[in-house]
């Protein structure tokens, strides 16, 4: 597909809404004092959102029926979690994850 007006406009529009989602909060937080309750709430965002991102990859979603488990990803996640607890090194954790997945694919 050659680049055309349709592709270009879509990319620019998508870029704009994404950029605004990223930047507007920074501008607002810089200029206004957030209520302490909201700050407290936001302090849970890292753990909550990272959990949701992991779960999103371990479950298979299909609207209208209960999510099912992606057993391949689940299987690779087990040694990855073990590696995290033992090594506490992000680089090693990622490498263990990649190797676990490669090995699982080789076996299945």
């Amino acid at each position, binding site marked *: *597909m050659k*680049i055309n007006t349709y*592709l270009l406009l*879509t*990319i620019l529009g*998508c*870029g704009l*809404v*994404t950029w605004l*989602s*990223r*930047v*507007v*909060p*920074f*501008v*607002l*937080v810089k200029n206004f004092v*957030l209520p302490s*309750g909201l700050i*407290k*709430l*936001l302090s*849970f*965002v*890292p*753990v*909550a*959102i*990272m*959990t*949701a991102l992991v*779960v*999103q990859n371990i*479950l298979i*979603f299909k*609207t209208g029926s*209960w*999510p099912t488990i992606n057993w391949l*990803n689940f299987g*690779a*996640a087990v040694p*990855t*979690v073990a590696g*995290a*607890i033992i090594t*506490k090194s*992000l*680089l090693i*954790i*990622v*490498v263990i*994850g*990649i190797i*676990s*997945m*490669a*090995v699982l*694919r*080789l076996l299945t």
Partner: protein
Amino acid sequence: MNDDLTIKTAIKDVIPTLFGYIGVGLAYGVVAQTAHLGILTITLLCLIVYAGSAQFAITSMFVSASPISAIILSTFLINSRMILMSTSMAQHFKHDSLRQNIAIGTLITDETFALGMNKASMTKGKLTPAWFNTANVIAYIVWWLAYVVGALAGKLITNPESFGLDFAVVAMFIGLLYLQMIGDRRRKLRVQLEVILLVVIAMFVLGRFLNPEIALLLATIIGCLGGMAVEEWR
């Protein structure tokens, strides 16, 4: 990772997250091949939109020739989690200039957000624009390169998944989540585990009724509210 906030440390800190980008880039290359997107289109997507799952969604919507408004709305919904992340991260840069805040916000991603929060738990909440911008810019360049290489390799590799690289992103989030949990000394481990459990249940239940992106957003908010509730009223 340590509590050092220099440019040199930022380079070292960001390296593990780059594996994830390479994995996603290769996987995307194959998708882009089937959608017949050229290197220029892929480059514009990477540099202007710069968001993984949204780029996959946009590409598949290109193939089905969806209306521009529908693609933009989907992108906004998929990336709406950025609003939560940016609001949360902005707390650390309130005293830096507006220009620095805009610079950091422009290139923040799931990965550099998670990395930054991990770093903050080691530095008693202190982060510098120099550290964050370095991590952001390296991530941005590697992201684009990984996608271009992925698109080129997409012609050669018929099955990129067999290398296990596609799991790098998941492994990275597992690692960052664990390090975040044990790194945050201000909060009891038990509360963190309760938040995690709540988010898992919320994702499962909401996943039946909503699309995964909206479920992710709502599950995160539910997790935050639940965390606050158990901390306040126990």
